[in-house]
Each structure stands twice: as C-alpha cells, then as structure tokens.
C-alpha cells in the first residue's frame, strides 16, 4: 500500500491566526436576526467552551474513519496543499451556521452544497464510488461533529445536563438540513445519535489517507513552539475522548484521564482560549455573542 510522503502536506503555520479570522468572519456585527439558533439556544451556550478545539479535532478523527468521507476530502479539497486553509474554511462555515443571520447561513450552505456536487470519485481502498452530496456521507460528518461536541464537553468541559445535550442534538437538525440531508434521516436526540453512529460502525476503517491526515493533525508541523506545546494537550484530549473502537482503528493509546490530568488539560485549554481571544476581533466577536446571550437570559 503506497503511503504518500508526509512532506506533501503544507505546514500548519498560522493555524491560530487563521482559525481566529475564520471565527470572526462568522459572527456578524449588526445581525438582522438571531440566525437559526439564537442567544437562548444550547448551540450558542456550548460554543464558547474552552474544549472547542479538542471537539473539533476529535470530530475530524471520527469523520475520517469513514473511507468515502475521507477520500472526498483527500482527493478534492486541497487538503494537502493548504490544510490550515481547509480547516479555517470549515471553522468559518460552522461559525456562520451557528451565529450568522439566516440569510448568511443559507448562502454559506448553498455554496457548500454547490461545491459538494463536484466532489465525486472512487475510493482507492474500498473501490467504492462516492459523491459528497450523498446524504449518507453528509450525515456521518454531521453526526461526528455533534457527538464529538457533546462528548468532549462532558469529558473535559463544564458539565452539560442530559436535557441540554438532547436539546443540542435537536437544534443541530436544522444545520444538517441546510447542508442537504433530508430531515427524516437526522438524529434528534442523544439516543438516536448514538444508535446511528453504532449502525455505521461496520463501514468504518482507518485508511492510509485517514492515518496520514490524522497523524498530521495530531502533530502539525510549523506551529509556533508555544502552540505546538499546547497542541500536545489538544491532541491528548481528542484521542482520550475517542470511543475505544475508534482509538483502536487508529492504533493510538492514551494514558488514562485521571482527575489531575483532566485539570491539567483544562488549564492548557484555558490558556489556548486566552491566546485565541488575543487574536484580532475575537474578543469583540465573543462580546457580541455574550451580550446577546446575557440579554436573552435577563428576566424581562
């Protein structure tokens, strides 16, 4: 099996800066409406957690285990040439869907659906044809993100009530619809979500493209030294929070998450968050969101 040289990947320099810019671009300054979720939603509440980067990395690791989803990214998206740009584009999309005005979210979704129609091919490992607009693939990507957000938040973040987790999964249904998944297919509760993921497991495997992409993401070259150190804990959080079966597919091991280790990871994530807030526009974007949320929480 040919393993492409890891040197084919561009460096991850600018990861923080470009992620921050992507985030800022997705939070409107004077929104005409509250978008698809709004300040009282669990979606907004959950988004500010320091575990965000870990959840993002974990969801990529889960998504990549679907050979066809991985092949689509690997063969089409410019992933190797500009991995950071590709990640930033995804961040911008997710932020726009979460916080953008409805019109902006719809425009972003339409654009992604349009791009997806051009993403077709054959996965070299399984020999299967794929289309990125296939609802089954889109659903896997959606489910991995939603489930990772909840799981990582529960494991490493501030506590999340069971009904809030269910509400979050239900709120996310509209995000799945926007990207082109028929409503009837989309899990609307944690139980449905878990059952769906379980049902897809037989199709999952760690292809060389997945192994290579994730090895890159777990230790991205070209980061500032300080960020690289922080990333060790982001990586640990992502790997330790994977389901056992996913970790085994990759062949990773992780030392157990003791309470002390958990605190340490949280501390490092807090520092990463402070660094993120230090990027231009991020604090202001956070404040816009916070002000709306506080207003919504205030008794009328």
């Amino acid at each position, binding site marked *: 099996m040919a393993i492409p040289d890891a040197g084919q990947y561009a460096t991850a320099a600018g990861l923080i800066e470009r992620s921050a810019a992507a985030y800022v671009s997705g939070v409107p300054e004077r929104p005409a409406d509250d978008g698809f979720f709004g300040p009282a939603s669990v979606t907004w509440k959950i988004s500010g957690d320091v575990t965000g980067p870990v959840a993002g990395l974990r969801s990529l690791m889960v998504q990549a285990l679907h050979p066809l989803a991985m092949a689509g990214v690997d063969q089409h998206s410019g992933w190797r040439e500009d991995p950071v740009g590709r990640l930033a584009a995804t961040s911008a999309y997710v932020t726009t869907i979460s916080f953008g005005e409805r019109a902006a979210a719809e425009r972003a979704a339409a654009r992604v659906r349009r791009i997806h129609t051009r993403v077709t091919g054959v996965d070299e490992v399984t020999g299967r044809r794929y289309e990125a607009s296939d609802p089954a693939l889109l659903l896997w990507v959606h489910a991995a993100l939603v489930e990772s957000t909840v799981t990582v938040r529960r494991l490493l973040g501030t506590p999340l009530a069971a009904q809030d987790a269910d509400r979050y999964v239900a709120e996310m249904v509209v995000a799945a619809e926007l990207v082109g998944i028929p409503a009837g297919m989309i899990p609307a509760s944690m139980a449905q979500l878990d059952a769906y993921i379980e049902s897809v497991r037989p199709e999952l495997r760690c292809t060389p493209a997945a192994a290579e992409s994730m090895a890159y993401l777990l230790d991205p070259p070209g980061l500032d030294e300080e960020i690289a150190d922080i990333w060790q804990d982001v*990586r640990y959080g992502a*790997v*330790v929070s994977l389901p056992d079966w996913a970790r085994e597919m990759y062949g990773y091991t992780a030392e157990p998450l003791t309470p002390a280790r958990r605190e340490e990871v949280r501390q490092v994530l*807090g520092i990463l968050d402070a660094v993120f807030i230090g990027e231009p526009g991020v604090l*202001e974007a956070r404040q816009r969101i916070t002000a709306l949320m506080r207003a919504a929480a205030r008794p009328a």
Partner: protein
Amino acid sequence: MRRVLAAATVAAGVAGVAAVVLLRRRAGHAGPGGNQPQPGNQPQPGSLRLHGNLRLSRGLATIRLVARGGARYATSAPRLFAAAGEHRQQLRNDLALQTAEDVASTLGTMKGVLMKLGQMASYIDNGLSPSVRRTLSRLQDSVPPMSPELAALVVEEELGGPPDQVFASWDPEPIAAASIGQVHRAITRDGRAVAVKVQYPGIAETIAADLGNVALLRRMLKVTAPSQDVDALLDELRERVLEELDYRREADHQRLFADYYNGHPTIVVPAIVDELSTRRVVTSELADGARFADLAEWPQSERDLAAETIYRFVFRSLYELHAFNGDPHPGNYLFHGGGRVTFLDFGLVRHFTETELEPLMQMARYLCVEHDPEMFRRNLEKAGFLRADAPLGTDQIVEHMALFYDTVRESRPLTMTGDYSSAVVRRFFDVRSPVTTYAQIPRSYVILQRINLGLFGLLGELTATANWRAIAEEIWPFVLGPPTTPMGEAELSWRARHPAPSIA
C-alpha cells in the same frame, strides 16, 4: 547547558502558569501504540518533539504569547471601565456578569490565574516592554462588572442582608474594578462614606483550584533549573495570590498600616470598617483624590512631594512595620496635594521577620555607610542573594550590585528618571554578567523586587528629585538621622507616638 540561575529569570518563568505549563516536553499522552504496524514515514504523534533542551527563554516566549491575549483584553478594557458615555454604560450592562456561572465562564479555567499572574508579572519578568507589562497588569480591567443583582447577592451572603438594608445608601453602579472584584460606593448606617469591595462569587475557588495544580509547574521548573529556589519561588508567589483571595487578610493588612500611620502628616490609609468586612467583602472609608495620571499636570514641586511620601511610606513600612505592600501600581494611590497621598489596596502584603530584614539592613549599611565591601558581600551571602562559593572578586560583585543602591550612596539631590529604573531592570536581569550566574532571589525577598521594578519606575515617571540618601538616613534603623526635609520635620509629632524600633 548554560547555568544561568539568576533567580529573577527563573521567576520570570513562574510569571505565567502558562509559561510553565508550556515548558513541558512530555509526549506520549497520546501516541501510537496498539498492534497496528506504523507506516514507515508517517509522523508519529507524541514522538516528534522529545529532543531539544528545556530553556528558560521558552517560558519568556510564552509570557509574550499570553501577552498577545492580554493586549487584546486590555484594549477593549477602557470601553468597559474607563471610557465615558452612554455606549460604555450600555456595553457594561450588556456584558455584566449575572450569575456565578457567568463568573466561572469568564474567569475560570486559568483566566483568573492569568489575570493575577499578569498583575504580578511586572516584577518577575524582564523581557517585556513596558507597554506589555502595563497590559498584563491591566488584564483585570477587561473583566465585565457584576450586574447590580449579582453584586447585591454577594453582599447579602456575606453581610446578612441586601445592600440597601445593610447600608443607609448603596450605589449599584461600581466605581472601579478591583482585584477579582469591584468597588461600590455606599454610606453606612452611622453615616460614613465608604468604599465596598465585592468579590466575584466563585472566583476564589476557581483560582485556588487552578493554582492547586502546581505539582506540574514545580516538576517542570525543576527540570528547567535544578534548584531548590524554584520550589520556594513558586510557593511564595502562589501563597501571595492565595492570600489575596481572602479579603479578611487584606483587611488585616490595611488595619496594620492604618493604625501605624494614624496621625501621619502626609500618609493616609483609609480605615477598615470591621463589621462590614468579611471574606468576600471589604469595607473601608471612602477616599477621593487625584489619580496618578493627573500628576502629569501638577507642578514638579508637588510631584516631588508626592514621591517623597511614597518613598517614606515604602521604607518606613519595611524597616519599622516589617511589612511591604507588594502592589505599588499607579492605581493604588490618590493624591491630595502638599504631599498627602492616600494608599489603597493592601491585598498583596508581605510581612518580614527580624531575621529576614537583618541582612537587608546590613547590606545597605556596609555598602553605603560603612563602606566595607567584604561585609556587604558576607551579608549578600547570608541573605541568600549570592552563592557562598561564587568564584568572583568582591569588587566585581560590588560593581554589579551597587547600581541598586545608586540613589542612596551619596548624600545629594538626585532626580529619579525612567532611564534609571530601566537600567536597574536591565542590570537585574543581565544574564551575561558573571555575577548573575551566582545570584538568586530567596523566597522571602521575591516580593521586594517591586522596589526595584515597581517603585523606582513610579518615581521615575514623576521625575522626582530629592536627597534620597538623606531621607533614607532618617529611616535606616542603623542611622536614625534627624529630619532633613519639611516633611521629615512634620513627621516628628507622629513619630513621637510611633517610635522607631531600635537597631540590632
């Protein structure tokens, strides 16, 4: 590895828990294992960055990294607390912390700790520009105020009733951000105007929990600089921060200072209102006056007087009260003209024992008064500032250290300047000097670096002129000279009631 054990530089590493956390070179938290064969040239997570030496400079780089965040915090800060107008009010209201949960999400997970360490970084770092230092020390300004309801809730929990019952009058709008809290104006039921500092609910627990995890920091610093002093420095900083979380300690400190300076002609310390002070609420007499920034407009003669008062306060407190207020930042003074200065905020105070103070006094004495370099050196070693086995000539040591005493070596009027304070800071952190290699700051004296790195900077900004040596001689317990300035004369009646301790 170059053995640069300048304790100050080590302390710079301590300046950010961030810094220290990041000094780790531990990989293998998540690494390839299991049974699957690893593709040949695939990057192996966890195994790539095991090589490379730990270096102190990395800690400093990380402070800069955090400062990057700090800079952003601070630039938005004025809009929250300092800027004027309706917009500010609106923004403050919009962002006000309404629940303990809001506090946790704003200041939890290290942000509160970063804020505190940012405050302290200004006397334990070297590589930062003054603007970044200011930025870090103002991190706290970025924190939104509590909503009036949340502040009232804390008051109720602490004082047993809502503020409008506990006080005759209560201003729900905070007048200032304070250390992990905010300050409200109020009038007590017996008619006194007071400042009430109210702590953010849950913040003490959050910071204490984050600081509790120092095993990691200690381990990493030990790898970095295999010295006992690392432990000591870390403990000292941690202890000071933890102390600051309990406002009762602050009230105790302030009482001590207020009692001592009661009746002093120019030093004013607001009295604590005991019955309205608890762990999370501290009430003191309300003080009003000009801010440090306003002094730029004052005549130089007034600035000189203000500087003289601050100078007397710092050294009288140290030598006579055996206490040092480690937070001499510009926001902690109010100026009234004629040299009268109100001293605020006693959260970061350290008390010294006779044994700790003795070598400090002897150092000044042998260097500046007795002119006995060997005895100066012996006391440096006794205090722990210099390793006993340093293969250095005494003249070399004196040459290096004398700069710190420049203002008091000769009896003549001398103007403090920004240049002098910068030179002191540079010398302090001069890792190229052979002396620095054998120098360190023992735990007890860590906080005194504020004299070199804080006080002199402040007096430099005032471009204050005085015969500092003459004033020092009034205060030095081994001289106890007669008054040399009108302010010294004016102190006499106060002094009669507060005799200076006799020297050893």
